[in-house]
Structures are given as C-alpha cells and as structure tokens.
C-alpha cells in the first residue's frame, strides 16, 4: 500500500485527503476570482448603464459589441456569476477544501474512508467547470436563466443552458460522493477516545452538512434529469400546455413550471445551509482559540446545527410566496422559517458569550471570524424580513433579496472561508501568512463589502428589481443612480482588495515564516499531534483523545490550553 512516487499520482491524481483538499482550495479560489470578475462587469453596467468598455468589445464582441453590454449578455453574467460562485466557489471551498483537509486530521484518522472516491469527487469538478464555461462559446451564449434556472425559460433557452444542466449533474455527483465519504469517515474512523461529543464544531458542522448534501442533492439531480429531458427529448415535466414563446405555440403540454421550483428549492434551500454550516463550524473553532476560552454552550451548538439542518428541509417554499402557491401553505413555511431564527440565535449568542471576557488575540483569522459574526447577523436578520410573507410580497425579487443573500454568502460563507484559510494556512503549507497584510485585506474587504451590499437593501425597498439590466430606463428608479455608482465603485475596490489576499497567499506560500506545529496554541489534533504540514498518513502514531476540543484557560494547568491528546497524567 505504499504510495506511488510519481508526481502525477502524488500531486494530481492523489488520493491523499490533504492534497485533494488543497486541490479543491486552489480550484475554488480561482473560481471565486472568475465569479467576482463576472460581477465586476455587472457592476459596470449597473453603475454606468450602456457606457462602452472598449476592451470588452474585443473580448466579447457578441455580448458587448463596441464595448456596450447587451441585455442577453447581462443575463448570462448574473446567471454565471451566481452559478460559479455557489457551485464552483463557495460549496467547494467550504465542503470540498476544508472538509477534505480537516476531517481526518481533526478526528485523528490517517485518511478518508474512501480515498479513491474522494479523488473522483474532485476530478468530477473539472468536466463540470469546462462544460459550464463551454456555454460562452456556443451559439446563443452561456446559461442565462438565473442560477435558479426556472422553467419554462430554462427549457426554451439554447445549448448554453443545456450545458448548465449537465454541468450541475457532474457537480451533484461529486457532492454525493464527497458526502458519503465524509459521513463514513466521521462515523468509522475517529481516533480512540474521540467520542462524538469530543469532536470539534467544524467536524460536527461538516458531518451534518454531509448528511444534508446526501439527502438534498439527489432531489436536484433527479430534477436536473427531468429538465434535461424537457430540453432535449421534448418531455413536459415542467412545461405547461399552450405556451407561446415569441409568437410560436410550443408542443409541450401538461407539465408544471411550479414543480421545478419545488424540486429546485427542496435542494437549494438546504444548499443555503450547506454553504453556511461549515463556516459556522470553523468560526466555532477559531473564536475559542483566540478568546482563550472554551466554546460557550458546546452541546447547544451541536443541537443548534442539527436543528438548522432539520428545519432547513421544511422551509423551501418560502422562496415561492409569490408563485401562486396556496396562502395557507405559505403560512406554514413562514412559521417554519422563522423558527430557524431560534437555533441561529443560539449560535450567535454562544459566539458572543465565548468572546465575553476572553483574552482576545486579534489575529487575522480571529478578525475574520468576528467579521463573520457581525455580517452574518445582518444577513440573518434580513432573512426574517423575507421569511414574513407580507413583507416578502413587497420586496420579493428586488435588490433586498440580493443584499440578504450576499450578506449570508459573502458576509457569512466567504468571511468564514477567509477565517478558515488564514487559520489553517500554517498547517496546510507550513508557513505563516503576513499578519499586517492580512489585517489590511480584512479592513478593506469589510469596508467595501458593506459599500456594495448594504445599499442593496435601500435599492430593494425603493423597488429596484433584481436581475435588472438597465435601471435608468425606468423613471421610478432614475434617482437611484448615485447609489448604484457608489456600489459599483465599492465593488471595484472590493475586487482590487482581494489582490492583497492573493499576494499575501502566494508570497507566504514561498517566503512566509516557517510555521511551528501549533502556532495558535490550539487544542485540536491537527495542531497537537501532527507537524506543519502533516505527512502522508497524518500522524506517526494514532493519537488517543482524552479531552474535549475547547479546553482553554483550564484551572490548575501549567499552560492555558489542554491538547485533546494530552493524557491526564501528562499534566
């Protein structure tokens, strides 16, 4: 069972969970950059509608002839921005990168339960990415029906939309493979003494997330197959009778467009939690480390995550309050959604209580974790507005929802990812990142993030619809020009600020200070039982776990932290 020495097997088609995690990391960071670049083009159009961008006229002569963006291209941009960010950026970085890297290390296992399945789950991402972007080069362009791909529009669009469907089938298969692997590994491969309630919160979160992925993704996969059949073989799962498109009656009959919405959101609302729970878990690891205090309410945190996961499966139709669904049904979804605020509130208060009177070490990961708590709070609170049916009917499909989802997915998931990446970077690469550049990056990101996203709430309340190509065409939105330009400027600066992170990342990768095994004086196994970076197989000897994951400021101890694998007699 010795590892093949070839570079190809070691670094490309590797079955080592750490290499696969790092592969997911680099891929998803690249995708986040591409997704962000697509957003910059959108912000150009929204800041200065139809002003020419001459160099883009050369790059995309059909989408931006003479540098002027046409509406179809804008539709492709927001569709691809959302799809790339969600399916190739946020989910892979949180679940793929951190899940793969952390699970075996933190539970004291040498590798995943199914290393080869793990490798396939990564390499399925590439056909997905290639096929998705292939749409840009096909007639009619890339997918343009929004990341939600609502039928019947998605059925009537061209091959780019078909590629979107096929691409997501690959992503879904990858996710299902990964989730089976995570669940099996956590259940069967924990080190001796690593009971479920000694697992760090990041592992709990990833474990529960994997269960969600396993339950939700097949619903997406099956609905994608139905959509594919509607598009290619003329079936009518989602296509109603008598549909006339551009003056031509279509041959479909008897399908239900609203069925797609139900099936899609049955996956995609849990997916919202798939995109936030791992970040919550990582934050729950990082805050105690730098507050030098045990995590407040560890058990309640576990139950809160489990409650969010369960409730996450029975709230999907709150995305459909204006779809013509029975209002009585809407009420039950409204109430179920609001109930999610309870476990979420438990988590927020527990994080605050963890910080309370702690010996705060304001490192870069800690600062990102605090930013996560603050930004996610805004995202969560605005979610309650949207959960309320009467309010939602007013702000549905406006920029209010765009603001909400960006506070959750950028303010939450991406700040969480930044926190996790800066926290585990020394373990992954054996080098420390620059604290000074890291703090500057965080500060600028936080300022410009709010500069882009907070005005979205104001735009939404003023009635600016989401996905709008040119607000200046409408008299009632004309006064929103200055706010839109402020947002666009903030967006460009937000994007530019990420250059600091990229620079810091690559500079530190090669020139950063050598990292000790446990630079943060943390308690969990990846820090206390493995060098930085850990070798293949992770641990020289299988660690034995004696303590919970957050033993900081332990009374009577010689140091203010107690490694999970430190035997009681070693004190």
């Amino acid at each position: 069972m010795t590892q093949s020495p070839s570079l190809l097997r070691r670094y490309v088609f590797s079955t080592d969970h750490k290499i696969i995690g790092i592969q997911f990391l680099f891929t998803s960071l690249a995708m986040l950059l591409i997704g962000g670049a697509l957003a910059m083009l959108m912000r150009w159009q929204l800041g200065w509608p139809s002003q020419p961008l001459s160099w883009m006229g050369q790059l995309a002569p059909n989408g931006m002839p003479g540098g002027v963006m046409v509406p179809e291209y804008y539709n492709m941009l927001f569709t691809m921005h959302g799809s790339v960010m969600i399916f190739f950026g946020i989910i892979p970085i949180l679940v793929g990168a951190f899940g793969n890297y952390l699970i075996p290390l933190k539970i004291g296992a040498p590798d995943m339960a199914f290393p080869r399945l793990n490798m396939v789950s990564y390499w399925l991402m590439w056909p997905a990415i290639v096929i998705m972007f292939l749409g840009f080069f096909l007639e009619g362009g890339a997918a343009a029906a929004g990341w939600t791909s609502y039928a019947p529009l998605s059925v009537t669009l061209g091959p780019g939309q078909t590629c979107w469907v096929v691409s997501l089938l690959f992503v879904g298969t990858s996710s299902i493979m990964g989730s089976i692997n995570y669940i099996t590994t956590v259940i069967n491969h924990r080190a001796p003494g690593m009971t479920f309630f000694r697992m760090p919160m990041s592992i709990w979160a990833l474990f529960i997330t994997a269960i969600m992925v396993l339950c939700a993704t097949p619903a997406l996969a099956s609905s994608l197959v139905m959509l594919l059949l509607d598009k290619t073989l003329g079936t009518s799962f989602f296509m109603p009778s008598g549909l006339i498109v551009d003056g031509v009656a279509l041959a479909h009959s008897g399908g239900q467009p609203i069925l797609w919405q139900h099936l899609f959101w049955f996956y995609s609302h849990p997916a919202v939690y798939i995109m936030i729970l791992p970040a919550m878990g990582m934050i729950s690891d990082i805050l105690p480390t730098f507050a030098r205090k045990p995590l407040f309410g560890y058990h309640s945190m576990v139950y809160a995550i489990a409650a969010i996961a369960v409730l996450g499966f029975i709230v999907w139709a709150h995305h459909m309050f204006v779809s013509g669904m029975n209002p009585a049904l809407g009420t039950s979804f409204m109430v179920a959604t609001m109930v999610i605020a309870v476990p979420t509130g438990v988590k927020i208060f527990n994080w605050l209580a963890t910080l309370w009177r702690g010996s705060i070490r304001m490192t870069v990961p800690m600062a990102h974790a605090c930013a996560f708590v603050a930004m996610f709070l805004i995202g969560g609170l605005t979610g309650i507005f949207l959960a309320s049916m009467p309010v939602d009917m007013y702000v549905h499909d406006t920029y209010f929802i765009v603001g909400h989802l960006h506070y959750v997915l950028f303010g939450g998931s991406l700040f969480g990812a930044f926190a996790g990446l800066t926290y585990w970077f020394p373990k992954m690469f054996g080098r420390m990142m620059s604290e000074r550049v890291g703090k500057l990056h965080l500060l600028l990101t936080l300022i410009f993030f709010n500069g882009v996203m907070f005005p979205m709430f104001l735009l939404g309340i003023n009635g600016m619809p989401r996905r709008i190509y040119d607000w200046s065409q409408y008299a009632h939105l004309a006064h929103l020009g200055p706010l839109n330009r402020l947002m666009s400027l903030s967006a460009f600066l937000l994007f530019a600020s990420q250059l600091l992170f990229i620079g810091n990342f690559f500079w530190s990768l090669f020139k950063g200070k050598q990292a000790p095994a446990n630079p943060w004086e943390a308690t969990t196994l990846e820090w206390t039982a493995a060098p930085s970076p850990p070798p293949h197989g992770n641990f020289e000897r299988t660690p034995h776990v004696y303590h919970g994951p957050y033993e900081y400021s332990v009374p009577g101890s010689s140091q203010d932290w107690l490694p999970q694998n430190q035997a009681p007699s070693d004190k």
Partner: protein
Amino acid sequence: MASAPRAQFVTLAALVVAIGCGGGKPQEASAKSNTAARPLQLAQAPEDPATAQPSGSAAITGRVAFSGAPPAAERVKMDADPQCALQHTDAVHKPEVVVNANGTLKHVFVYVQQGLEGKSFAAPASAATLNQHGCMYEPHVFGVQVGQELSIVNSDATLHNVNCKATKSKPFNLAQPTKGMKTSKQFAAPEIMVKCVCNVHPWMAAYIGVVAHPYFAVTGDEGTFSLAGLPAGTYTVAAWHEKYGEQTQTVTVGDGETGSVAFEFKAQ
C-alpha cells in the same frame, strides 16, 4: 488500479456531455415564426436595382391600386417609454394599411417571382439600412438581395431589440441599447417576407423581402413601382402586402420594352 475506473469515468462524462449539449437549439431558433404564409403590406420607394448589375434593357412598371374603405389606422401609444413619446409631436399610427391620396396602396413589396430561374446575380456592394427612429422602423417594408449587407441602426436613445424571424435563413434577435449602435447582418436564402419586431416596443414591425435578384421594389406615396434592367423574357410579378396577401401577374417584355402591370387590393 485506478486507470480503469478513470477511463470508464471519462467515457461516461463524454456520453453525458454528448447527450446533454448535442440536442440543444440556438436561443434565437427556439421560437420559429411562420411569416411565409402571412398577410401583406405597402411599400415605399424602390431599392436601386442598378447597383446589382442588371443584365438587360427591359422594364416592368405599374401601380398598386386600392379599392374600398380602408380600415382606420391603429394609434400607437408610446407613453410607456418617454424616449419614444418625446420624439413625436403628432399622433403616430401603425403603418399597416396606408392608402395614398391617389387611391394607391403604400408599402407593397413587388418582385419578380418567376422567370429568372437559372440566372445568378451578385449581391450589391452597398448595404440596405433598417433604421430604428422614433421607435418606428424605417423603412417599414423593404427588400434586400441574398448576401447583401443589412445595416441595422438604432437612432433612438433607448433600448431596442431586433428580432428577425427568418425561416429560410438564420433568424437573429439582437439588442441595441444605445443611440448610434450599428449591426450588420445578411440573409442566406430568399424569403417572402422576413418579419422583424422589437419586443421592447411591441408596436414596431418591419418586413424584409429577401430575393435572389435585384428586381424588386416597394410602393411609395404614388403607389407605383418600376423593375428596370430586366433581360427579355416572360415573368411572373408578385405584389405582397402585410394585410392583404400576395397577388401575381404574368408579363412578357422584350429588350428595350417596358411592360405594364396593374395590381388592385380590395378592402376586407
């Protein structure tokens, strides 16, 4: 050990991609129109056939008369887009049935339907122009030769899209968000008529007669037409109107002769 599963995976991936992407239709082609079997329309000043090197000295001239009471023209309401409304001080009506003061019909596309088989004609070097001005198409009815450049221009400070529903050539649907934008297109095959609409301003419609030769014209304010430079021969001449359909007549002309044709459309 891992190569066999990998090979299987690659095969599976290729299969899924082939199934998935292969069956798609272009976005513009997803909704095809059937304008070929549609009503008619009047026309304006004829295109200049001289640009396409006519190969004879015969000519066919005529007029298109209208009898009966013309239907009242439908008024166009442009209030939804101030950029459109601001460009008109007077009421705007749909140019569907326009009867001239002399009792002739405007916007009728007249062309040689039969008699030129076996002859080929080079497309003219000059472009035909479809202008969007005051949120109306100018001209409303016109002809182009197969392969001739069609220059589509937006002269309005508002978004237009040009959705041309060709069935014999590749249809297209393009947007022009800003004033002064120009896009060039061509048609690959003859088609009577290609209808173009703007989905932003639903009252806008233009009809393009795509023919393989330069012998076409559109009736204008006098209701007359002239097809000059024809080789001697017997021709079927057709007149097409967007509401009243198509009529044909046969005429024989020799070199240097001018044949005359009279069409008459009746109110329905």
